[in-house]
């Protein structure tokens, strides 16, 4: 009997299935509940099965203007999230790659000092300097703008360290051969280093896109204009309406949550290998 258990590892599978359910079940409840009408939800609580209102709810959420000022649709918010995610990921890659290249491949007077300056950003996550950051952005007139949303987030050094580590692992011989072939620093970067870094760039892009898409605190602070809300923020404003007046539209709130979740999850699942590779490399 013991051999049977061992051979088929039933206990292991059981534990794993419980774990998978632990992660998936809450979201399933949210999704299933989003397809019911609010009345059912209030009477019976969250639902496990479908309620047939999928199209109605999601179409409504995507196209009807809601929120405090009745200006934004979920579609607009998803667009904002997309811009934030893409802008953040691209910006981070460009800025970190160039900075890492400078630090690794050049010996210049300020090099050491600048490295440490960049390093200090690891010490202070955004949450710790939100108020003054807000002030700076406001003073620069960058509130309620995409640039204000994206650029301050790029400040931290994680991307730079990631590329720095990768560049250090590139064999010196490559650079020596390039020099012999007459390539200067710019050509070396474009023709040789960049193509080599393709996988790393892709991996980091995926992670940073998810991070950017999922941002909450910073967008909350600096977008008073609702048309700049990201979908993640949209959840909050819907929920504030829920406890306020009328019939709480739970189903809409849930639909928004699902919409906020689907793109990053799809990306993480489809690009699983790259994503995991990037995650494991970036935090060493």
């Amino acid at each position, binding site marked *: 009997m013991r051999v049977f258990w061992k051979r088929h590892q039933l206990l292991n599978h059981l*534990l*794993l299935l419980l*774990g998978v359910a*632990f*992660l998936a079940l*809450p*979201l399933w409840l949210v999704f299933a509940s989003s397809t019911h009408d609010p009345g059912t939800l*209030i009477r019976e*609580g*969250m639902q496990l099965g479908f309620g047939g209102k999928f199209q109605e709810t999601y179409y409504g959420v995507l196209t009807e203007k809601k929120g405090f000022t009745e200006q934004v649709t979920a579609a607009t918010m998803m667009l904002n999230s997309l811009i934030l995610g893409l802008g953040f990921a691209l910006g981070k890659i*460009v*800025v970190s790659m160039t900075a890492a*290249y*400078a*630090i690794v*491949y*050049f*010996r*210049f007077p300020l090099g050491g000092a600048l490295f440490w*300056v960049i390093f200090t950003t690891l010490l*202070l*996550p955004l*949450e*710790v*300097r*939100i*108020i*003054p*950051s807000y*002030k*700076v*952005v406001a003073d*620069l007139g960058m509130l309620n703008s995409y640039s204000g949303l994206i*650029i301050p987030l*790029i*400040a931290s050094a994680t991307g730079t360290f990631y590329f720095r580590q990768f560049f250090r692992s590139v064999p010196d011989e490559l*650079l020596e051969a390039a*020099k012999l072939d007459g390539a200067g620093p*710019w050509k070396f970067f474009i023709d040789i280093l960049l193509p080599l870094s393709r996988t790393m760039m892709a991996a980091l892009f995926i992670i940073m896109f*998810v991070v950017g898409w*999922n941002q*909450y605190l910073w967008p909350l*602070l600096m977008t008073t204009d609702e048309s700049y809300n990201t979908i*993640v923020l949209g959840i909050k404003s819907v*929920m504030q309406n829920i*406890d306020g007046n009328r019939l*709480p539209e739970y189903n809409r*709130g*849930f639909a928004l*949550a699902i919409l*906020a979740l689907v793109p*990053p*999850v799809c990306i*993480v*699942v489809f690009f*699983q290998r790259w*994503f995991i590779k990037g*995650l*494991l490399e970036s*935090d060493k």
Partner: protein
Amino acid sequence: MKRVTFSHSPIPYLFVLPQIAIIAVFFLWPSAEAIRLSFFLEDPWGLSNEFVWFENYQTIFEDPEYVGTLIATLIFSLSVTFLSLGLAMLLAVQVDGLLRGGGTYRPLITWAYAIAPAVAGLVARFLFSPQIGPIYAWLNPEGQPPWFEPNLDSIDAWVVVTSGAVWRQVSVNFIYLLAGLQSIPRAVLEASRIDNPSGLGRFWSVTFPLLAPTLFFLMVINFSYAFFETFAIIDTVFPFGPPSGAASLVYKVYVDGFKGADLGGSSAQSVVLMLFVLALTVVQFRYLEKKIHY
């Protein structure tokens, strides 16, 4: 430092400029401002600034609400760290130990990394909601006076926030732990199968010590996450503010600074948080240094 480099070129300055510029404007300047403001006391109309040395710091540490929040945040961070690491470890060990089918489970668990903390907060909020939450209904059965009230009781509130945070973090830890487990040489594990009949004994004397660097790293990451980045969860679980005693330090900075317009006090709190991060980072790097010397 690379053995071979370029020299005499304007390129490094150009290349490093974007990052340094952004850091200077959006990082150094605000951080310096935060430190500066923490030494001032502003009057409610923002008309005058009074330099008060460390008075702001004194005030916050004498404020029982602040100290309470500090302790609560610490406890919360530790719970989230241990719970999410424990659960993730359990799952990672199972997947690593599977002879077949491990590959199918991995995506089924790692996808949760993509969940935004804000979404986790929403899910937690509604699962525990008095109106429609299944967990609330299960904990407070019909016909009896409810004993679990996250909207009223601070400890219950923390339970909800902790659940959301742990739920989200398990996936991250799982990814790292599985990678760590799979990097242990198979032959070493086989040798232990010959040397030690007890599966649990093998885990504690061979697997766990070899996993130690990964675990340490994860503990720091998890603690930082719980300590600093759970604003989103608290704000979405309690959009109108948590019951008193259930705020985290970061949340308090936000509330006092934005809503309460107490720039001095809020800045002082920020600086205290900065010191915490500094301490954590120093600890992590000291440990890393030791490892490299092996």
